[in-house]
């Protein structure tokens, strides 16, 4: 049984009150956050008020929904009215949105308890959570290792039982990779399934909000609650509900493996995925190998387009309407430049410069325009691939969690960070859904993750297959941290 259902039963039966449960989470956060650095802002007042409301309902004998009273967290790039939303950046210090993101509005209607805002790479740009202005989040399986990025804080919190589930965002792998590093479940929905209204934009045509949970059933419950059409987001469409399809028999389902996906990943990661394929075969699924040469170009294509969009999305941070403003300046232009140079971290500035470069006159055709057309080719390639299979099985990341400080060491190539996204990025490029689930661990005990990639708006099938594997193989490993139910 998933955590959400367990908690729901406990609340309904009176085994624990929502307030008691929430207090336990808040206590554990207090105990552990110094070491894990998962949370940027903890919101005890909000959480306890929300919990009290749930308890009142229960006291009156009213029915509560599945998500009602379940303590959760939001990545700190999701807007919460009156609650600091920083994107882990100095340039948004003290920024309190005057509106709620649509996903938060939807969850508030469900009666959630929001424990606080969790850590991330600055403006979601990173793969280890270490570009955060507040320092990186640690992996609950090993404090020497990173939680992953960019939704590192969410993954760390959920993996350490400091929240039952969280909402992260995924632009090039930022939900799946930290979920993989922390040994938990992370779902990136189809582009357009979940509203982006209120998500502080990194790359607008790639960003999606999705759940990070302990188990697949929880991911299905949360996804179904947030995958709704939103008329404030012109690119949103909603999606098909997934919970009822979770338990379907998977015999006869065709699982594709692209050979290119297995090249370039560490041997133990590759083996874990192949073992998973065998497990699926024993459950009656069919494994199909195929070529996807377009994968070779997905990474540079993604980075060109994502950085271009990011450079434009981040133009608005100028110290005039919100956020950090340079203390000393002479003239408006000077003020804006100083504010941005002092307020943005190095990685963010690098990506803004690169994005501006590929859009600038003289380079637009060679880079941006070409990348747009290449994107079309990648979309078509996946379309063709789904002609021979129902889902695609692949590693989530080529490695397991990096050692803290590794990506930003003296000798490290700035490109290494980008290259580590090789498995996740093609999915965002094609706008497809994908779920990462644990499928093993390496010699140091660090989790290995695999992802199931589905057709557009077919979260139902990938969660179904993920669920069956999870139930059969149970690769999830509990950590020492947080609230134990």
């Amino acid at each position, binding site marked *: 049984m998933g955590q959400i259902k367990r908690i729901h039963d406990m609340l309904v039966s009176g085994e624990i009150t929502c307030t008691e449960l929430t207090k336990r989470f808040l206590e554990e956060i207090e105990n552990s956050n110094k070491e894990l650095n998962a949370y940027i802002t903890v919101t005890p007042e909000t959480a306890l008020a929300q919990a009290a409301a749930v308890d009142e309902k229960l006291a009156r004998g009213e029915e509560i929904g599945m998500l009602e009273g379940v303590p959760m967290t939001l990545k700190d790039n999701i807007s919460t009215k009156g609650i600091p939303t920083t994107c882990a950046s100095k340039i948004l210090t*003290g*920024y*309190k949105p*005057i509106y709620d993101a649509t996903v938060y509005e939807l969850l508030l209607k469900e009666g959630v308890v929001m424990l606080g805002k969790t850590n991330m790479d600055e403006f979601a740009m990173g793969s280890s959570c270490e570009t955060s202005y507040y320092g990186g989040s640690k992996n609950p399986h090993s404090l020497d290792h990173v939680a992953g990025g960019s939704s590192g804080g969410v993954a760390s919190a959920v993996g350490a039982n400091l929240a039952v589930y969280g909402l992260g965002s995924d632009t090039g792998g930022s939900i799946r990779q930290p979920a993989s590093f922390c040994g938990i479940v992370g779902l990136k929905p189809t*582009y*357009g399934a979940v509203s982006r209204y209120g998500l502080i934009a990194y790359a607008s*045509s790639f960003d999606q909000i999705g759940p990070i949970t302990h188990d697949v059933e929880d991911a299905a419950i949360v996804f179904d609650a947030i995958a709704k059409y939103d008329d404030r987001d*012109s*690119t949103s*469409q909603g999606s098909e509900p997934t919970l009822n399809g979770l338990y379907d028999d998977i015999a006869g389902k065709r699982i594709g493996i692209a050979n290119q996906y297995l090249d370039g990943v560490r041997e133990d990661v590759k083996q874990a995925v192949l073992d998973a394929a065998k497990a699926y075969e024993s459950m009656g699924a069919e494994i199909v190998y195929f070529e996807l040469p377009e994968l*070779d*170009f997905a990474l*540079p*294509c993604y*980075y*060109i387009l994502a950085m271009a969009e990011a*450079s434009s999305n981040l*133009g608005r941070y100028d110290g*005039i*309407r*919100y*956020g*950090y*403003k*340079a*203390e*000393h*300046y*002479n*003239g408006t232009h000077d*003020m*804006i*430049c*100083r504010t*941005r*140079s002092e307020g*943005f971290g190095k990685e963010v*500035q*690098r990506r*803004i*410069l*690169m994005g*501006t*470069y*590929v859009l*600038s006159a003289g380079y637009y055709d060679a880079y941006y325009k*070409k*990348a*747009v*057309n*290449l*994107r*079309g*080719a990648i979309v*078509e390639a996946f379309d063709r691939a789904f002609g021979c299979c129902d889902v695609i099985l692949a590693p989530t990341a080529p490695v397991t969690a990096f050692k803290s400080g590794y990506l930003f060491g003296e000798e490290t*190539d*700035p*490109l290494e960070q*980008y290259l580590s996204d090789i498995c996740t990025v093609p999915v965002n490029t094609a*706008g497809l859904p994908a779920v990462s689930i644990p499928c093993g661990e390496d010699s140091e005990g660090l989790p290995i993750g695999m992802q199931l990639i589905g057709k557009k708006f077919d979260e139902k099938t990938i969660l179904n297959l993920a669920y069956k594997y999870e139930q059969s193989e149970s690769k999830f490993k509990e950590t020492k941290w947080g609230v134990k139910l």
Partner: protein
Amino acid sequence: MVTREDIENIALLSKLFVDEKDLDSLTEEMQKIVAFADTINNAEVTTGEFDNINNLSNAFRKDEVRPSLPVEEILSNAPEQAEDHFLVRKRA
């Protein structure tokens, strides 16, 4: 090949200052990143022009007025304000 001058121009467009002392190392980094981006030239793209990632069209809103937010909320995050305006002083 990305030059120092390129970086200076890009920085100006991006409204970012690049310290003189950082300019060389930044140029080198950017050269690496651009070389990485250059690898797309090895791809043969035979498909036509790609439109956009969703094939949606005509997402419209009705022309009906909804109340605006109170000026206090609009200005609530302003680093500096005066007389209900956002303020940028000449210098600080």
